[in-house]
């Protein structure tokens, strides 16, 4: 499985990748994107099986990226990993087609809870 990790913070991308490994998902290919626009381009070029994306990013936000993906017909599973987890954001994420929203800070248990059903 190929997982696309989108976050404008390189440090946070490393933390997400490390947490994926700690949660037991250590045999998957990881692709990184540094904002929503980069993620959208890499969904086409890299064809990931799952996108884990920050919400608040320059150039294109995570929700804009998801909406653009769905508008273009892409059904790639998409989850948010973001510093905010308000009910309004969760509802907006779900409406746009996200499978889940993981709020930072997170642990490997949080990842397992949300990803076990997605990553067979």
């Amino acid at each position, binding site marked *: 499985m190929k997982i696309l990790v989108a976050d404008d913070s*390189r*440090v946070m991308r*490393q*933390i997400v990748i*490390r947490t994926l490994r700690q949660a037991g998902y250590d045999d998957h290919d990881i692709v990184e994107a540094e904002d929503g626009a980069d993620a959208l381009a890499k969904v086409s070029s890299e064809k990931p099986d799952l996108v884990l994306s920050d919400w*608040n990013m320059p150039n294109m936000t995570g929700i804009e990226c998801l909406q653009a993906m769905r508008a273009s017909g892409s059904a790639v599973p998409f989850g948010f990993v973001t*510093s*905010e987890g308000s009910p309004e954001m969760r509802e907006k994420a779900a409406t746009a087609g996200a499978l889940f929203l993981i709020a*930072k800070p997170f*642990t490997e248990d949080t990842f397992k809870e949300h990803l076990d059903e997605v990553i067979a």
Partner: protein
Amino acid sequence: MTGFPGSHGDTGERRRTSDAPVLITDLLDQETVQSIAQEAWSALVGDDEFLVPLPGGPPDDAVSSWVEIVGPWTGTVVLTCSRATAEELSRCLLGEHAPPVLDEEDIQDGLGELANVVGGNVKGVLPGPSVLGLPEVGNAPEAGAPADTCRVDLLWRGQSLTISVQGSAGAPLDQ
């Protein structure tokens, strides 16, 4: 039906410029800020990393990161420490991926992301709807009135670290 405002569940209450401003000290206490920060530290910096509520004095070479919150309460969440502490924090965040010598971009990125996570969770306990800005790093923005500031002085590994949830400077507190 397109009735006037107030005809459908609208209480008619409106915030007037003469109303008392929303102060952060009415919305948030120091214990909550410290608890949010400790959760971020435990999850991101390390399981055994603790923030001790003791003032360590202002660092000589202070660097700050912050995020802005705009909503019913508007201000910034500012994290301030010495540059050496910021470097140590970023090294912890990167873990095994930390290079022998961290470049400035990684240090700013790490400190900014900590402010982002703490700020995002502070926003979560404030009345909404609010918008969170992107993290910035540099010299801390000027604080607003003391009455609109919730500040915690902490020690991490014996080094001074301050988190200030502060109203924007120049906010109309005296109207």
